[in-house]
């Protein structure tokens, strides 16, 4: 080994790195250099950094175990400030210039960590510790136990503020989705792509090739990476193929839908302009080829978590792909034929091999030959009984086949317990994997519809088999999607010997880890089994085996094998715990996409928004809309002052309010009237043309669905209004009634809410204003156009408009609707035309105040729990006709005279304020549920009356008019005496509106 740029442990030659360029980065306090093509893990190893983190529970020193997404140990915090990201796996992080990474779960520093004392306390923190210890007393949980556990449990720290980067969510449609770009996946994509199918090839790595990048095998006379590059090049040249590197397919959903996250800019210091950091793909595929490969397991033996114990396949990846020597003197420990490759690759890279320890009594000749070629003794039938060292590995104890022990000095143990096919995605729709004794692996059960599993994911570990299977599956998938092709010629490739024997654990004294990320030891599993939690799903919860960011990818099977042995069951009987999405962690940013902050949902602006902004309106969200709440004038320092002025303006002169957000539903057809009679309480067939009626609609269960108005514009043409918050639901309900209940009726329903801008002009001088707004020739006199009249007119000089004489304020009132595009002009025109009458703009608050003064029910009263009777509309309910909700509204409990009904209320002491939510009690009764007589639904200060008023639902309703009740509000600590009165406070006879 020679000390070259990019780290002293960098090999002099080889690897898929760009040696001529250099990248500087930081890890904790150290400054290091690496090359393009490095991961953070490979660059750290090249610099001799072996200790990268502390474990979760015992704070044991941990190093890099793997070279992929399965990494349980090397979790680091990336970047700084608001781009800080915890729990990233150093094994998949691409380094970039200026990268800052920090180790986690250590205090005060990685080398000297106070939490390591937990290691000494180990015997006192067994499995299920939290369940047993933090149970009692209950009051301690929130204040003491939870904060304590949270501090101890934190793996990484979230960024202090909102993520400054953008994320996207996109759809993608294809004929064939290929997951994984190893030998099998590349061949599948090639076969399907050449056949002309739309192919998407996704791989989590930044370079396509999968395992070929990490091995020395030759494919078609070229190196594996060269062959992969050539295939990737051809695929990239096909217009029907889309390559998605840096993309993890993490979930399978119904109907051939797959979720994937593409790390678009994670490998860059900062995302370029107009580029998201990550992209969430929803991929809809007709057929899928799963070529996700396999994940290597370690072996459970004492000290197996020491930095320097590394998966053998990862050792080969660091040697061959990254040109890094992860150690100077290695011991190879396994029970499968991969040991030959590992020993050969180590020797080829100049790493001394201290011994090849093969647990099999008679390893095949290839392993013996490789050991001999590497100059290492082959210890057949032997096992490692301990890895020695602390933060750095110093050696290993070996138990020979004859029972004797040796000490092998080494700083690297390349361990392989065998490979587990990556079948996670096959189980996301519920299929259970099955045990294959010959392959010593769980293989996919019945995969999701349309999915074929090939290559190492199907248990085939030989490169030639992977290529052949992939090609056949790709061709078949394309054919099934309607694209015939021919099988691509298969390149020459090795048929590696894949002999294997079970090797889960070594029985020896000492702490042996099954799950590194959660510090689950063999003893924890034994304890779980003794205490009755030995079934796989129970053991997972009891010991946390297989939880957290890695979900036990390297440890689960060993844990299961140990449990099976403890329980005396065959491994086949111990079904794996359920695999659920996501396969690897997905950031909340990617899931949210652009739907965050103000973009969380569309915000709708009224046609008068620009005008209201100029008038300095204070806006409030109302359903999906932003509406003007009030229009403060100079000198008004609280909202009540503005609202009071606006109410007086309406009641004394004239006011103007944008009511465009009210739902407008156009109902037309020969059967429009009879349809409406089936869905609401109105007798629409008897409604005169050009008249507006108050409208109530019931649900099937007899409660009120919504209120509004119905205007008859023609014999077969009605226009309904619905409340702002309910209109979407009301339209949907009407469409359901039409299509599901009465498709034989001739009726069309159209939501025209946003087609019309509508303004209320209300107040004693409203007629004077409207007379100037409506084009000459239209008679606005009370006789010609009385209350509840409606007409199609022209206004503002020829603009088609709809005019309604309706009032939500109780004053003489009109609502005028113009096509939405004229809304801005119309509101400005009305302000000019009404200037002489002193027209004032008023907002939602004044509107709400005036409707309470009039006792009109709104959202707080029509809350889904009130009937027409409760609201005082019993007389509206027709005695005849089969309208929806009729039968259920007649239920005894809903017609009980003692049922709470709408009343008005005012404080006995007129200086007191009222609060919605207070409950009615008779004087002297305690504030208990048993004494509860109803509640205050709406409350406001009435500028017209000069004191507070409210609406509420009181048992017995109007029978209590004149009585005194208490309105108790224990939540806000108020209780006041109120007088019950009819719900209408202003002009109960309705003379103003009819004048």
């Amino acid at each position, binding site marked *: 080994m020679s000390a070259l740029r990019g780290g002293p442990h960098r090999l002099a030659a080889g690897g898929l790195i760009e040696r001529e360029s250099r990248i500087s980065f930081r890890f904790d306090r150290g400054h290091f250099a690496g090359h393009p093509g490095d991961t953070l893990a490979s660059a750290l190893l090249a610099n001799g950094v072996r200790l990268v983190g502390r474990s979760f529970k015992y704070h044991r020193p941990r190093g890099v175990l793997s070279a992929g997404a399965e990494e349980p140990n090397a979790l680091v915090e990336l970047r700084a400030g608001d781009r800080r990201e915890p729990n990233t796996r150093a094994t998949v992080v691409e380094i970039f210039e200026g990268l800052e990474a920090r180790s986690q779960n250590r205090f005060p520093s990685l080398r000297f960590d106070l939490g390591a004392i937990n290691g000494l306390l180990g015997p006192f923190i067994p499995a299920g510790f939290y369940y047993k210890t933090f149970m009692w007393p209950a009051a301690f949980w929130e204040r003491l136990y939870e904060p304590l556990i949270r501090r101890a449990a934190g793996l990484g720290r979230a960024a202090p503020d909102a993520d400054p980067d953008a994320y996207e969510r996109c*759809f993608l449609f294809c004929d064939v989705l290929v997951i994984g770009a190893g030998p099998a996946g590349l061949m599948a994509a090639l076969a399907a792509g050449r056949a002309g199918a739309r192919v998407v090839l996704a791989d989590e790595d930044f370079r396509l090739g999968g395992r070929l990048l990490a091995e020395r095998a030759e494919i078609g006379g070229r190196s594996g990476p060269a062959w992969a590059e050539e295939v990737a090049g051809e695929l990239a040249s096909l217009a029907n193929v889309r390559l998605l590197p840096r993309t993890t397919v993490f979930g399978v*959903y*119904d*109907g*051939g*839908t797959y979720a994937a996250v593409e790390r678009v800019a994670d490998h860059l210091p900062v995302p370029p302009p107009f580029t998201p950091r990550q992209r969430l793909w*929803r991929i*809809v595929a007709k057929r899928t080829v799963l070529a996700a490969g396999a994940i290597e397991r370690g072996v459970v033996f004492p000290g197996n978590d020491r930095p320097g114990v590394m998966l053998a396949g990862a050792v080969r990846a660091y040697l061959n792909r990254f040109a890094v020597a992860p150690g100077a003197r290695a011991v190879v420990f396994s029970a499968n034929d991969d040991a030959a490759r590992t020993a050969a690759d180590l020797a080829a890279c100049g790493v001394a091999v201290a011994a090849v320890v093969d647990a099999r009594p008679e390893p095949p000749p290839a392993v013996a030959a490789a050991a001999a070629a590497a100059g290492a003794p082959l210890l057949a039938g032997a096992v490692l009984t301990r890895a020695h060292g602390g933060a750095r590995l110093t050696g290993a104890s070996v138990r020979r086949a004859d029972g004797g022990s040796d000490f092998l000095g080494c700083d690297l143990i390349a361990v392989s317990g065998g490979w587990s096919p990556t079948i996670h995605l096959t189980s996301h*729709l*519920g299929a259970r994997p099955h045990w294959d004794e010959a392959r010593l692996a769980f293989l996919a059960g019945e995969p999701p*519809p349309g999915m074929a599993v090939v290559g190492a994911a199907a248990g085939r570990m030989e490169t030639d088999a992977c290529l052949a299977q992939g090609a056949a599956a790709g061709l078949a998938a394309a054919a099934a999607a309607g694209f015939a092709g021919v099988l691509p010629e298969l390149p020459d490739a090795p048929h590696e010997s894949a002999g294997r024997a079970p090797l889960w654990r070594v029985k020896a004294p000492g702490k042996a880890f099954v799950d590194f990320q959660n510090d689950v030891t063999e003893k924890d599993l034994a304890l779980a089994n003794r205490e009755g939690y030995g079934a796989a799903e129970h053991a997972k919860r009891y010991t946390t085996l297989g939880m957290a960011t890695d979900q036990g990818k390297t440890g689960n099977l060993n844990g299961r094998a140990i449990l099976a042995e403890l329980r005396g069951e065959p491994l086949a009987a111990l079904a794996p715990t359920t695999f659920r999405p996501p396969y690897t962690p997905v950031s909340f940013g990617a899931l949210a996409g652009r739907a965050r902050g103000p973009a969380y949902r569309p915000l709708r602006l009224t046609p008068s928004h620009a005008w209201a902004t100029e008038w300095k309106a204070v806006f409030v969200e109302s359903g999906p809309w932003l509406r003007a709440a009030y229009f403060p004038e100079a000198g008004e320092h609280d909202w009540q002052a503005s609202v009071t002025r606006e109410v007086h303006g309406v009641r004394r002169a004239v006011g103007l309010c944008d009511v465009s957000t009210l739902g407008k539903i156009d109902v037309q057809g020969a059967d429009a009237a009879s349809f409406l009679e089936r869905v609401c309480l109105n007798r629409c067939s008897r409604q005169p043309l050009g008249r507006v009626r108050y409208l109530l609609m019931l649900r*099937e*269960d007899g409660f009120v669905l919504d209120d509004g108005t119905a205007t008859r514009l023609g014999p077969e043409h009605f226009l309904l209004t619905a409340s702002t918050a309910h209109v979407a639901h009301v339209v*949907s309900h009407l*469409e*359901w009634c*039409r*299509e*599901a*209940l009465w*498709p034989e009726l001739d009726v069309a329903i159209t939501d025209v809410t946003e087609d019309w801008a509508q303004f209320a002009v209300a107040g004693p001088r409203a007629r004077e204003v409207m007379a100037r707004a409506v084009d000459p020739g239209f008679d606005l006199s009370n006789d010609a156009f009385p209350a509840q009249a409606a007409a199609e007119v022209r206004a503002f000089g020829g603009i088609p408009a709809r005019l309604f004489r309706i009032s939500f304020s109780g004053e003489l009132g009109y609502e005028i609707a113009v096509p939405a595009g004229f809304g801005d002009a119309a509101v400005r025109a009305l302000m000019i035309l009404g200037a002489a009458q002193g027209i004032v703009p008023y907002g939602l608050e004044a509107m709400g105040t005036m409707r309470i003064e009039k006792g009109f029910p709104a959202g707080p009263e029509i809350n889904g729990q009130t009937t027409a009777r409760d609201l005082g509309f019993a007389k509206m309910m027709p005695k005849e006709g*089969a309208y929806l909700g009729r*039968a*259920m509204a*007649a*239920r005894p409990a809903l017609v009980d005279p003692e049922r709470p009904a709408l009343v008005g209320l005012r404080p006995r002491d007129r200086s007191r304020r009222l609060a919605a939510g207070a409950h009615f009690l008779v004087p002297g009764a305690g504030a208990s549920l048993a004494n509860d007589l109803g509640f205050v639904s709406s409350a406001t200060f009435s500028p017209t009356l000069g004191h507070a008023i409210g609406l509420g639902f009181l048992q017995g309703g109007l029978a209590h008019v004149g009585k005194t009740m208490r309105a108790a509000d224990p939540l806000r600590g108020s209780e006041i005496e109120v007088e019950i009165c009819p719900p209408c406070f202003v002009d109960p006879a309705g003379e103003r509106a009819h004048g």
Partner: protein
Amino acid sequence: MRIDCPHCGPRDRREFSYRGAVLPLPEPGAADEAWFAHVYLRDNPAGPIEEYWQHEGGCRAWLVATRDTISHRIHAVRAAAAR
């Protein structure tokens, strides 16, 4: 999940909204018990069930989808108005 709208073709489930099981409306004048059952009582079959879905983000048609509650597969979709 995808629903094959008879008017628009297969679309993502985000375009659809769910109402519930398809149940016949009781006859006019039916006993209270029939209405009570219609409004409040639901079977919870393990297997195929007919459900109302609306293609709210598409053609707005109300559909009847036959969905298997075990496999989540949708076996058939028709317009609710087409009986």
